[in-house]
C-alpha cells in the first residue's frame, strides 16, 4: 500500500513536470485556412491575422498538450532533417505564445539567438501578423492638399 501511494505520488509529480513543459495549441475562436505547407490563422478576438510558415505550422501542430519542448525539438530535427530543433522550436513557441496561439500557462522557454548561418541552414519558424483593417481603412484616400494662405492685408495704424 505504502509502495502504491509512493508510486502514485511519483506519477503525479512526473505528470506535473511533463505538463509544465507541454504546450497546447489554441483552437477556439480561430479561423484556420490551410495552404499546403503553410497556413493562415485569424484570431476572432484580437482581429489579427497570422501567416505561419511551414516549420512554424509543424511546431504548432505538435502542441498537443502532451509533447515536451525537447520531444518537439527532436521531432523537428527528424522532420526537417536538421540539427537546429533545439534553437528553432523554442523560438517558434515564443512566437506562437506572443500571437496568443497557445493555451494554458506558457512556460518560460529559453531561446537562443539564431545566427545568420543558422537562418540559412535551419528551417526557421516565422510568423507574420497583421491587424485586419476596417472597411473604411481599405477605402481609397485622397491626400489633403494644404493651399497657401492668402497674404494678409497690410495693417494700417490709426493715429
Amino acid at each position: 500500500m505504502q509502495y502504491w501511494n509512493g508510486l502514485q505520488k511519483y506519477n503525479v509529480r512526473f505528470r506535473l513536470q511533463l505538463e509544465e513543459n507541454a504546450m497546447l495549441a489554441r483552437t477556439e475562436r480561430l479561423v484556420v485556412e490551410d495552404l499546403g505547407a503553410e497556413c493562415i490563422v485569424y484570431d476572432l478576438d484580437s482581429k489579427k491575422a497570422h501567416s505561419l510558415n511551414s516549420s512554424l505550422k509543424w511546431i504548432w501542430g505538435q502542441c498537443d498538450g502532451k509533447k515536451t519542448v525537447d520531444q518537439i525539438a527532436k521531432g523537428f530535427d527528424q522532420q526537417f532533417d536538421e540539427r537546429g530543433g533545439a534553437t528553432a522550436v523554442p523560438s517558434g513557441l515564443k512566437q506562437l505564445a506572443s500571437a496568443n496561439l497557445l493555451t494554458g500557462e506558457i512556460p518560460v522557454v529559453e531561446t537562443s539567438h539564431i545566427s545568420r548561418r543558422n537562418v540559412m541552414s535551419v528551417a526557421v519558424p516565422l510568423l507574420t501578423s497583421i491587424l485586419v483593417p476596417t472597411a473604411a481603412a481599405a477605402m481609397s484616400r485622397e491626400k489633403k492638399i494644404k493651399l497657401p494662405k492668402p497674404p494678409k492685408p497690410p495693417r494700417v495704424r490709426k493715429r
Partner: protein
Amino acid sequence: MKTEVPALHAISHGVRFSVRVPDTFSHEGVRSILPPGSVETKKPAVDGEFSLEDSAAPGVYTIRRDGRIAARSVPSADALRRLGKYLQLWVAERAPDHVFIHSGVAVWNGCAILCPGRSFAGKSTLIWALVQAGAVYYSDEYAVVDRRGHVSAFPVPIALRDSVGGLRSFITPKFGAKNSETVLPSLVLFLRYSPGSTLQIRSVTPADTALRLLQNTVSARLNPQRAIHAAVSIAKKARAYGGSRGDTDAVLEWIAKIQCQV
C-alpha cells in the same frame, strides 16, 4: 422654394440602397456614380439610405448614410463623386456573394493581373500603363472575388493623381470588361511606387499572399471567414511578387518576360 426630389432605388451585388440628392443635381448625374453593375429598382431600399443634403454654407453639402453624417463640408464639384465612393464602400462591405479586395485588375496578354494595395501605392498608374499597352481593363478600385476565386469586373473610371497626391483626372478606358465577365487571377503584384528607384521584385509565399490580400479586403472584419477563403483561393492559384518599382515600363517588360497565362 426647394422641390422634392424622388429617391433613386438600386441594387448592386445583392445590396439594396436608395439615393436622394437636392434638385441641383440630376438623376443622370446620380446614375453615373452608382457602383458598376447597379440595377435600378422601384422598391424602396432596405439595406441603406444615402442622401446628399444642403448645409448651412452655400455650395457645400453633407453626405448622410441612414441619417448619420458620413462626410460634411463637401464642395459641390466633388459631392457626387464622394457620394459614389461611399456607395461603393457600402456595397463592398455588405455584398453577400462577393468579397471586395482593394486592388487594380487588368488582363494583359492572357495574364490576369491583380495589383492590391493601399492608396498612394501606385496601383492606378500601373493599371493605366497596362491598359495603354493593350490590356483589358477590369477595375481600378476593387477586385470583386466570387466563391470560386474568380474576379469580376468593377470598371470605375481610373483615377490618376498629380505629383503631390491630389486627384488629377478620371479616365474611362475604351477596352473594358463587362460586369459579368470573370477571370481567374494568375499574377498578384504587391508593388509600391518609389520615385527614381529600379524594379526590385521578390516572390511572395502563398500564406503571405493571402495575408496581404486580407490586408486590403473590405469585409475582412465583418465576415473574416469569407474574406480569408477568398484570399486563400487566389493565393493557391496565382503567383505573387512584392517589392518596389520606379517607372511602369520596367514592370511591363518584366511581366512580358515571365510566362503568365490565365
